């Protein structure tokens, strides 16, 4: 063999050895990686399980059936993962949610339900939970859900909204959601009032309550994918994507930012002359009040966990003799008859406290009674005055001491009630006396008859403050200003007088100095 040939064969052998050993090594490495990968997967699953049992099982149950010990108290009820039916998804009807959908549900939560956004979890923990939750249904092993296209394909300006409004009618959204989106369509009202079914078509105005988010993209997604297991089915089969964007734009335009105030003091404005006693009186639009967030009464039996009324707007005027409160809230149904009626109540401490300690906000306590003004829809223009020292000792005041008048109207899913009473009454031991310039605690309760709310089954708020605005602001400034003027003049006069008495003015001194020089 020649030298060239020899070298050639050696190098070929070396190449062969090199490539085979490299591939063998690589395989070994790969196997190692796969083994490590599945170890990691198992660890994730374990971690997910531990997290789940610590955070989720109370509501969703240890086997994910939505039957945890807390579940009977919740409305809506927690998701049964074994059914594989998920409401908030980016996938078509009948499909599973994507991992991202599940992750978003865990971290963003579902507003208006007990599923809060779990932002105390790290991102890694969130994904671990997603992995574990998928084990509750075998469908997750067999199917790979494909999200729909969520990119906006049209511009959503005024024309889009107008077209969306037409579609709202054509797709019959109004049947459940109502003409103006208040969740008071004929189907919803009939199911609730005639059939006593908790049929919950969304009030589209309340942006803070959309379960899957309230952006235009979120609305598009819901319309396209549908909420599994509800009458809000997918409309992808009835509208093109463009049409769904138009409809989403329209629905977005219905939203309003109403939510509970962060303020604490309600100012009652002074008027000279008659108080506005009719809810339709224009003067109510000229004064500012605020919106109170109400929650269900869950302190004592009978509890109300699925309260309907969660926002109450209040304003107030007063004059020399009386004080009036204007109360407004959403109620799909007007219930004036029967055992369960629509109602609202104001609560004040009988004795205005000097310091911050107030009677127990839930209807007072022994020794610190509260004065309640309760209006029920069946009694229309009469309200009842009660006194309570705790929710178990509530007494209706005798007839002569009933001095609260009411005027109420219900229209288009909204109650508007004006309650009015003299500022001062003779029954000081039970009635609150409204003094100017003081912070008077005030609390609110409301009942929705159609939801079988009565007695302790109600929505209520904690204490806020009411103050009767005094109108002497300008006079105070005037007197202060005059006082300052007078004082300045007095001082100047005093200085002049002292100088004269000393006999020498500055000018005389200066001339003397010059002349003497």
């Amino acid at each position, binding site marked *: 063999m020649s030298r060239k040939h020899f070298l050639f064969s050696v190098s070929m052998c070396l190449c062969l050895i090199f490539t085979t050993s490299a591939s063998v090594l690589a395989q070994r490495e790969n196997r190692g990686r796969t083994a490590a990968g599945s170890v990691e997967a198992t660890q994730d699953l374990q971690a997910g399980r531990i997290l789940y049992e610590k955070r989720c099982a109370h509501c969703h149950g240890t086997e994910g059936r939505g039957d945890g010990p807390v579940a009977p108290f919740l409305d809506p009820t927690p998701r049964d993962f074994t059914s594989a039916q998920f409401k908030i998804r980016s996938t078509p009807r009948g499909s599973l949610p994507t991992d991202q959908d599940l992750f978003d549900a865990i971290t963003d939560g579902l507003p208006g339900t007990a599923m809060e956004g779990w932002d105390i979890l790290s991102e890694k923990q969130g994904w671990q939970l997603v992995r574990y939750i998928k084990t509750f249904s075998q469908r997750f092993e067999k199917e790979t859900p494909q999200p729909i296209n969520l990119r906006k394909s049209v511009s959503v300006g005024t024309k889009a909204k107008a077209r969306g409004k037409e579609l709202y009618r054509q797709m019959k959204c109004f049947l*459940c959601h109502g003409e103006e989106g208040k969740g008071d369509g004929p189907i919803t009202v009939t199911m609730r009032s005639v059939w006593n079914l908790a049929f919950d078509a969304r009030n589209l105005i309340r942006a803070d309550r959309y379960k899957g988010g309230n952006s235009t993209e979120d609305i598009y997604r819901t319309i396209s994918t549908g909420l599994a297991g509800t*009458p809000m089915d997918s409309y992808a089969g*009835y509208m093109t994507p463009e049409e769904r964007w138009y409809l989403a734009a329209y629905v977005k335009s219905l939203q309003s930012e109403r939510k509970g105030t962060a303020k604490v003091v309600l100012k009652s404005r002074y008027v000279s002359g008659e108080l506005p006693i009719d809810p339709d009186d224009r003067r109510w639009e000229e004064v500012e009040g605020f919106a109170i967030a109400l929650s269900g009464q869950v302190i004592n039996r009978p509890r109300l966990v699925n309260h309907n009324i969660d926002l109450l707007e209040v304003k107030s005027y007063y004059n020399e003799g009386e004080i009036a409160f204007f109360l407004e809230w959403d109620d799909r149904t007007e219930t004036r008859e029967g055992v369960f009626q629509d109602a609202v109540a104001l609560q004040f401490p009988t004795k205005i406290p000097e310091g911050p300690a107030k009677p127990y906000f839930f209807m007072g306590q022994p020794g610190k009674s509260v004065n309640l003004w309760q209006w029920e829809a069946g009694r229309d223009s009469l309200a009842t005055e009660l006194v309570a020292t705790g929710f178990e000792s509530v007494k209706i005041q005798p007839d002569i001491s009933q001095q609260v008048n009411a005027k109420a109207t219900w229209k288009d899913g909204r109650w508007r009630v004006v309650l009015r009473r003299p500022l001062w009454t003779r029954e000081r031991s039970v009635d609150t006396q409204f003094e100017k310039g003081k912070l008077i605690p005030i609390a609110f309760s409301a009942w929705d008859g159609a939801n079988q709310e009565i007695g302790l089954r109600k929505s209520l708020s904690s204490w806020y403050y009411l103050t009767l605005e005094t109108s002497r602001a300008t006079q105070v400034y005037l007197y202060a200003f005059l006082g300052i003027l007078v004082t300045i003049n007095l001082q100047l006069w005093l200085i002049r007088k002292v100088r004269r008495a000393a006999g020498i003015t500055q000018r005389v001194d200066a001339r003397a100095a010059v002349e003497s020089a």
Partner: protein
Amino acid sequence: MRPKNGPPLTNIVHKVNQRWLYQWLKNPKSHDPTAQMPNLQLEDAEIRAIISYLTSIADTMFPKVSWNAYLLKDEEDWSDEDWVQLDLAISGGEKVWRRSRCTICHMVEGRGGFVNVRVGKSLSKIAGKVKRDWVFQWIKEPQSYFPETFMPRYRLSDDLIKDLAVYLTYADPFLPYEEEQENIDEISPSLDVDQIAFGKRTIELSRCILCHDVKGIREMMPVAKREDEPSGGFFGLLNDVRCLTCHTIAGKGGDYAPELTFEGSKLKFGWITDFLAAPDIIRPLSQQMPRFNLTEQEAETAARFIEENFLRADMNLEVTINANPTRSKIEAGEKIYSGKGCHACHAIQGEGGAVGPDLTTVGDRLEPEYIFFHLKHPNRAVPFSPEPNYGLSDEEALALTYFLMSRRKQ
């Protein structure tokens, strides 16, 4: 999970005439102010399309009834004899109507409808709504059309059902108002494929399936599974005759009629059998049970089940009741009966008050042990009864029991 609120719509076009269906879909409350269906604000074209779809899903073969010849002719062509036949049919139907006590559940002309607003709709103007063939099928076998109905199966002969159907479609109380009585045109629905598809789409968008089963329309919410209903024995009867619409057994059922949970201890087997076959008047001032025309065998099956199972455990009798009391004991009881003034509320052979049940044949009806228990503890036997507790001694109660046991049909 709930069953649906309304009846299934698969064969609705066999049940109602189309003009009525049009009016109903346009505005349910125009037919019945207490209608529990919302107004869906449908346009004329949509209503017609819905009717097309409903026509397309109906069974092609609906059982036909062999009516008498005159009923198949136009009224204008009737002879005098035909009118006489109509009168006979109407009066025959009215007799069935009375015996069946339909007004317990159904309101007519503002009267009746006592059980529950959900049970039995008003039958005023029904003649303008339903087709006669359907009425026949309905009365014959209600659950074949609407499995969850509260309506019992009355076991009437075909001839009687025909009379009842004629009564319901020709008698005054059921006729629609004058201005609605003009010729009821059929709205001939187009069976064009596009029209049917449009109807289906309208039904889907209007969410009819929330309350109605509609063939071919997909479900959206979880619906309660229909339990397999029993067909034989006592529970089959209970299901067929719908006793629980009015009666309560073990906490389940309605409260219009007496609770049956302990009636085995209270009532005699023979009496239950006779009563179920042909109900008597027990409490003249109170409700009266309809006549369901149960056969002897059915009545016996029910009575046997009740006797064996519907027992109360708290009678705790400490005396023995002789099955054949002597004459002197019975007379002693009679003295106590008149002495305590029982006839103020109870009647025997036409003499006495009508507050409590008639006692003329109480010996046939009540078990002796129950009579004794009731006399000693009237308010435990019948909660909230107005019967006073006389504080009778065991001897007095026993004598009174012997007297009442002997009140039988001669």
